[in-house]
């Protein structure tokens, strides 16, 4: 067994122990030569908490700050110190899905509606950024190769806003270099 092949086997063993439901090594072959691709790192982007406005009152704007407990939060994990870019694609209106058809409610996001921070889940220390603008972030150094993101926003129901469940779609795009 070559040194490289041994490394593959070692990686597979560690993967099997640490991540029983996820293969972390894969291989493919070419004619006349041994060839294997060792997967030594991954990227995972996860939502930790929903941006939660709860129940709002007609005629009363409700703002969730990125530092609030009910802000949306996200975690990116990958290669230590790697650069990433983060962009949100955000709705401007929410659509009532249970009330009168076609009813909408405005939602807005300001230039400091989002924050990001390496390593730590601490929005108060996070770097403010405009969620609608491409922003460069960086994963933390070992042993915490993380970037946390937080998102707030404002909904502005009219005084005569119809009752119902208003929904919209938030897209977070993370580019890994």
């Amino acid at each position: 067994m070559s040194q490289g092949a041994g490394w593959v086997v070692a990686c597979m063993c560690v993967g099997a122990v640490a991540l029983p439901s996820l293969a972390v090594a894969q291989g493919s072959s070419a004619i006349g030569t041994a060839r294997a691709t060792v997967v030594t790192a991954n990227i995972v982007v996860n939502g930790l908490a929903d941006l939660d406005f709860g129940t709002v009152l007609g005629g009363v704007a409700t703002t969730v700050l990125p530092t609030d407990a009910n802000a949306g939060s996200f975690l990116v994990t990958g290669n230590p110190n790697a650069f990433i870019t983060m962009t949100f694609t955000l709705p401007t209106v929410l659509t009532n899905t249970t009330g009168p058809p076609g009813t909408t409610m405005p939602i807005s996001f300001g230039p400091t509606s989002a924050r990001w921070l390496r390593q730590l889940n601490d929005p108060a220390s996070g770097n403010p950024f405009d969620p609608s603008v491409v922003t460069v972030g960086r994963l933390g150094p070992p042993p915490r190769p993380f970037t946390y993101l937080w998102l707030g926003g404002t909904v502005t129901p009219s005084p005569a806003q119809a009752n119902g469940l208003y929904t919209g779609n938030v897209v977070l795009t993370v580019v890994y270099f």
Partner: protein
Amino acid sequence: MRNLLIFAVAIVGLPRVLGAQGVLVAPHAIYIDHRVRSEAIQLYNPGDEPVEISVSTTFGYPVTDTTGRPTLRMIDSPDSTYPSASEWIQAFPRRVTLPPRRRQTIRLLARPPADLPDGEYWTRIIVAAKGGRVPVSGVAANDRIQVGLTLEVRTVIALSYRKGNVTTGLSVSDLHAQVLDDSLEIGMNLERQGEGAFIGTLKWRLQDAEGQTRAESDMPLAVYYTLEPRLRWPIDRLPAGRYQLVTELVSERDDLSSDVLLPIDPVRTSIDLVVP
């Protein structure tokens, strides 16, 4: 090995993960050999709810913006001067619903033109994961105004397709640096040589007049055409004096097998610095 352990710790140590809001993508960089023409990526849903996943391609490559920070230049319809593989890399399946804590293999197949010249071709794989629920607090009812936002997460990773003998290299110019209180800012101009992108690591160390290393660090780097990074690292406050900054670009990455990295001879550069 270290990265595997870090990854395992990351999964085990993930804070409370809400269902249907994310996906793990492995590996985070794909290399396909022309002789094989296929590879696979693994997806894993660590949440408690199903995730709807779609896989697509687009062309893009890293550049630096006017402040020296890396960003991705995306080109929806690259012309023939770009080495794009976006048009002939296909994912199977392209759409899948992944149950909680289950994995899915996505096979990537290359169908390049028959007359494809030797070289390296690029695309970006976009893995979009969308939850199948509308998260709201409380019980949905029509006697109040409630708000629920769904989340879609798009993870964008690199794919390189190589045909024939592909080489790379780097030329470094205009290395400059300054010490700013508790940080060190390093800038340089990088230009790729050869046919393939340089994927490697920038290492640096700051030596005092006695040759002792007072600070050092490294970071992964990818140079597809040119890059003019201006990067800042936190360092301990340094006493006044003369220092030397030594940088080294090597074809090594902690997170990638050496099998897929195009080798180069290390490129070393140094400059003198004065801390007032």
